[in-house]
């Protein structure tokens, strides 16, 4: 237990009069807040908004793909739909999802601080995010963009007739929000830890968010300048990506993937962190191999910068560069494997219960394992030539990003929901939703592996009829998945009013964030905690000896 010196005072169990939510109810108190908890909630609403738009785009695409002739929407529309889906999901949902919502909310509490290091910058980062979002929305409303989220040149710079610059500007601006968030987290984790909270007493969620921040800070600026160059190229024709003017379109891919491959790890590392919190708590076991799980996060963050060329095996990149990138890609799979093995080993001789967060954690391990293993197919040069840019790739990264990150986000949201709102969500409905999500997800994306191996290229609006059966399965799965996401939305809102009071620590978890009331007071702790022990000090025997708590 991150044992703190003061025993949880009995007063905490009672109705807390002052918490960060009840402190003030005016709109200005939200829009001008510098409280990391409120900013986390602002982010939650914002990304939910973008998630809904992007999901509608996905739903329309899935419906459209029900028949091979593509009769529901025009091909222009279809191309815009997958671009909207990709851009919004990647930059306006996944990247801020766990870091900016759950990270913002929990990091200061988990390290025993009153707030992040730069609260005003934190608020600024949300406003910048909204600014970027407005650019993106403007681009969508004024006609959309049809380049795909990858913005490949020379299509995006010269040939597309859509609002590429507005969308690029949106991503550019949102990028700075990511950079500021990452910077803030890094400084906070370095400088704001409570007395006694050494690096190896930090929860693994903090380790994973630290690694994520490292990527945010070092990769995002390259995306920003690349998109700036793309916009200049489109506006003025500077020619750096244009073969006709002496440039090279593949240079864009290098710059883009230098950011976007590490960004894939922005979209999974925080999820791994959440799982590392949930599993010990619901298995009542100290995490197995703490150092390995912690350092594997850092290893993934650093090695993740060295593998971007595996997106370019058939791009006319040199075969020798392909060799290097393939080798490094295989190496980066090892730290992920280490994490999965350690989570499994943590369950050994635990006392496992299956509340909703734990169900999502199990779902995460299953789906992430499949996503990770199929990544090996794509890292393998000979197999990637066939699989590249097919539905196999789509299925693979959805297993990581939706099966991994979104499952973890849902798990984390359920896990910290009592802390955020002070209320419990309805447990039974939670379990149903987790199950429905898992089934729907697999039905949606597993057929896409088969489609991909058969040769169905991605971003196809129409397709040869022999692929139809898999598309029908996939669309059926997507409708189930949709229900799986809709349910929590309903019961979370329901729980705000009717959920039962959570108390400070409904999961009997050991993290510092559970040592304060729910919802926490504005400054998180009434007195700065002092940490004396390693994290995850759980015992499977608590059931029999409750006095040990």
């Amino acid at each position, binding site marked *: 237990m991150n044992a703190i010196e003061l025993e949880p005072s009995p007063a905490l169990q009672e109705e807390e009069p002052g918490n960060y939510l009840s402190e003030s109810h005016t709109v200005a108190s939200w829009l001008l807040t510098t409280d990391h908890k409120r900013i986390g909630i602002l982010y939650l609403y914002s990304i939910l908004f973008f998630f809904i738009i992007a999901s509608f785009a996905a739903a329309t695409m899935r419906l459209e793909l029900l028949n091979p002739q593509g009769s529901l929407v025009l091909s222009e529309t279809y191309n815009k739909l997958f671009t909207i889906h990709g851009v919004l999901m990647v930059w306006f949902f996944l990247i801020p999802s766990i870091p900016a919502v759950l990270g913002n909310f929990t990091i200061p509490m988990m390290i025993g601080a009153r707030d992040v290091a730069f609260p005003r910058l934190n608020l600024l980062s949300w406003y910048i995010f909204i600014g970027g979002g407005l650019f993106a929305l403007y681009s969508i409303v004024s006609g959309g963009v049809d380049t795909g989220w990858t913005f490949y040149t020379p299509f995006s710079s010269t040939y597309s007739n859509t609002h590429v610059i507005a969308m690029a500007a949106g991503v550019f601006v949102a990028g700075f929000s990511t950079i500021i968030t990452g910077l803030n987290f890094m400084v906070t984790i370095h400088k704001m830890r409570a007395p006694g909270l050494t690096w190896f007493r930090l929860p693994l969620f903090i380790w994973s968010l630290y690694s994520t921040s490292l990527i945010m800070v070092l990769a995002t600026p390259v995306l920003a300048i690349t998109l700036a160059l793309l916009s200049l190229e489109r506006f003025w024709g500077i020619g750096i990506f244009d073969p006709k003017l002496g440039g090279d379109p593949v240079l864009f891919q290098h710059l883009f993937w230098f950011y976007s491959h590490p960004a894939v790890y922005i979209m999974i590392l925080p999820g791994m962190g959440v799982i590392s919190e949930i599993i010990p708590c619901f298995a009542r076991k100290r995490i197995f191999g703490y150092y390995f799980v912690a350092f594997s996060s850092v290893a993934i963050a650093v090695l993740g910068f060295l593998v971007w060329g595996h997106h370019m095996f058939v791009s006319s990149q*040199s075969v020798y*560069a392909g060799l290097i990138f393939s080798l490094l890609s295989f190496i980066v799979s090892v730290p992920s494997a280490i994490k999965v093995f350690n989570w499994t080993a943590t369950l050994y001789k635990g006392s496992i219960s299956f509340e909703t967060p734990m169900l999502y954690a199990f779902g995460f391990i299953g789906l992430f394992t499949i996503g990770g293993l199929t990544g090996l197919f794509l890292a393998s040069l000979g197999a990637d030539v066939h699989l590249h840019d097919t539905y196999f790739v789509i299925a693979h990264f959805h297993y990581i990003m939706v099966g991994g990150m979104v499952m973890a986000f849902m798990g984390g949201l359920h896990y910290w929901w009592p802390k955020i709102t002070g209320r419990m969500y309805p447990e039974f409905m939670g379990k149903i939703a987790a199950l429905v999500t898992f089934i729907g997800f697999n039905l949606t994306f597993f057929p896409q592996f088969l489609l991909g191996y058969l040769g169905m290229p991605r971003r196809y609006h129409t397709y040869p009829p022999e692929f139809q059966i898999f598309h029908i399965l996939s669309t059926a799965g997507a409708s189930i998945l949709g229900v799986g996401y809709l349910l929590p939305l309903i019961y979370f809102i329901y729980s705000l009013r009717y959920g039962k009071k959570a108390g400070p620590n409904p999961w009997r978890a050991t993290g510092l964030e559970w040592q304060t009331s729910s919802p926490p007071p504005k400054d998180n702790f009434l007195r700065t905690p002092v940490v004396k022990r390693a994290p995850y000090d759980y015992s499977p025997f608590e059931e029999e000896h409750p006095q040990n708590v």
Partner: protein
Amino acid sequence: MIPLPTQFYIKICAALLALLALTWGLAYIDLGSWNLGIAMGVSIVKAVLIMLFFMHVRYSSRLIQLVACAGFFWLLILLSLAMSDYRSRGWIPTRRPDLTQSDR
């Protein structure tokens, strides 16, 4: 951090200006492919001087020293891996039927 003597700062600045003169002068001497290497070398020395003494990296914590190097290190990753592609593009010449046949 102890404030450094003003004299010391002036000396560093003088060294920087001398190095500037060196780069400038050397650019007018044809050293073949060495021109670029030397110019970059001198620039790196200048940057290191500024960072160590003007920016006090020499007197900062290990963490700051690490962060100060990180950005440049990551830039090096970008440049070296991307150029590894461009530099090795021609290594497999497109094998021509007529060329390889004459090899046999």
